[in-house]
């Protein structure tokens, strides 16, 4: 049985961050499984909140995540055209519940978004459900919980966290 090691998981997450910062969004999307979810809960919700009952900022299934990536590459996604500069820092990586071919991973993140003379900071923790497939690690779920009181002054989550 193969197990997950932190260096392997870190390499994968750092690669994910680099794809986002380089705006290689199709390659980023390819890191997700066909049944993936990507969520950013509102900042005043409890930890166990679900998007079926509460209002999130983002609650994408694989289809909507694909559409999000498609949209972000259009010139009509005005919030991100011209593109902002981003830097995704990923740290405090812990492997929780490692299984044979799946594991849960907890990370801390700081993401900077710079555009139009302003640099906004997104701070939080991410929880991943990773799965090992023939082609390598894939993300089945990514949930980013912001350590913010509100989206002030950021105003939006128009980038991918």
């Amino acid at each position, binding site marked *: 049985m193969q197990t997950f090691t932190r260096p392997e998981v870190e390499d994968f997450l750092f690669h994910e961050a680099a794809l986002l910062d380089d705006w290689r969004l199709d390659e980023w999307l390819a890191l997700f499984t066909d049944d993936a979810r990507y969520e*950013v*809960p*509102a*900042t*005043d*919700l409890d930890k166990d*909140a679900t*998007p*079926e*009952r*509460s*209002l*999130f*900022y*983002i*609650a994408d299934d694989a*289809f*909507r995540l694909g*559409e*999000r990536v498609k*949209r972000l590459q*259009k010139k*009509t*996604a*005005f*919030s*991100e055209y011209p593109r902002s500069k981003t830097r995704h820092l990923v740290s405090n990586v812990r492997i929780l519940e490692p299984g044979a071919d799946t594991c849960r991973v907890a990370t801390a993140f700081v993401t900077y978004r710079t555009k*139009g003379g*302003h640099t906004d900071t997104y701070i939080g923790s991410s929880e991943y459900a990773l799965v090992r497939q023939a082609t390598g690690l894939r993300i089945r779920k990514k949930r980013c919980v912001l350590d913010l*009181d*509100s*989206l*002030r*002054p*950021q*105003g*939006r*989550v*128009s980038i991918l966290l």
Partner: protein
Amino acid sequence: MKDISKVIKLHVDKERQLFKVPRTSFVDTDVFESERDAIFNRCWLYLGHASELAKPGQFVTRTVAGRNLIFNRDAGGKINAFMNTCPHRGATVCRDRAGTAKNFQCFYHGWVFGSDGKLKDQPGKESYCEGFNDQGGADLVPAPRHEAYRGFHFIAFDKDIVDLPTYLGNAREYIDLVADQSELGMTILGGTQEYSIRANWKLLVENSIDGYHAATTHASYLDYLKGTAGSLAAVGIVGVGRDLGNGHGVIEYTAPWGRPIGQWIPAWGEQGKADIEKIVAGLGERFGAERAKRMALNNRNLLIFPNLIINDIMAITVRTFYPLAPSFLHVNAWTLAPAEESAWARKSRLENFLEFLGPGGFATPDDVEALQQCQAGYENLREAAWNDISKGMGKAQPAADDEIQMRAFWTEWNRRLTRANTAT
């Protein structure tokens, strides 16, 4: 106070059908100060919804026009609005966002207030005279005025303001069309969208009731709907704009997106179709076919002057916002839903909301960008001084993508600032 008559003067030419707003009004600090006194201190302002305080003792803390408030339901079931400051030395009494409390205790010197705001206890009571609080001066201070309409609670800082129903006037009809969507009561769902925009607050007023910008600003959202199987009904964007008086305005129109209260889209399947038909039949029994159809199929973007938006579109958003500076505003937005709707309808409603609305949606971030780009444009106001709000001015009945509802806002804005300016 400085004379601001020049920087708030509208250019209205009925003959040439022109309505222009000076760009100085978006950047001038004297206008910003005057708006605080003549508008935010003199209008009914939205505080919260009764459904947020379902049980006795429930409270939320909230900021309204720069003031900190406690909005709570006391042990006797009454809904209150208290200034969140200790009558003793001023410390914030309740520092939680939300919760349930029989009492509020100020942590500084330990004064204790009941959920009805009355002083209940003070450490070292014996050092105060007997009857110290006979006049109630050591109780929590209530908001100067507090009234509710159909579950929407408002406060005002002007003791002499007209009563809320009179203030709301013709806008009540549109609040009713939302409030009537549930027999059990409309309810605010968990998850508040609190964000900010680096722009003047009046830009968000206009944007929230703007039927003209969707095709361009939200082209990528409309592309998404077009590209998603079954997400559009065969309905065009057609409707009217109205000046409701007192600065309130509305656009009412049909649109192709699904409405969980009554417009089915193929993506919702046969189960969804049956559910929607049942909801619409229920509305018909309660209100008759015509009104039921209006509630089910029509979208409404409603402005209650100066800063409450109730948009009943692909979901319902209740949104309020305040300027912290001429070029910076804070937004609070919630979503409202019928308490009795099925798990399926609730899920669809929430998905509809976050696909379009809110800081992570496919549309709102582009509105934020547009507003910030307008604000940036006003740096050029010395050379390019006027905004144009003329669209549809010559029509007997302006359309939903015209601008009569914005002219209603600007006319009232100008009337209030002019009156205050003349008085000083």
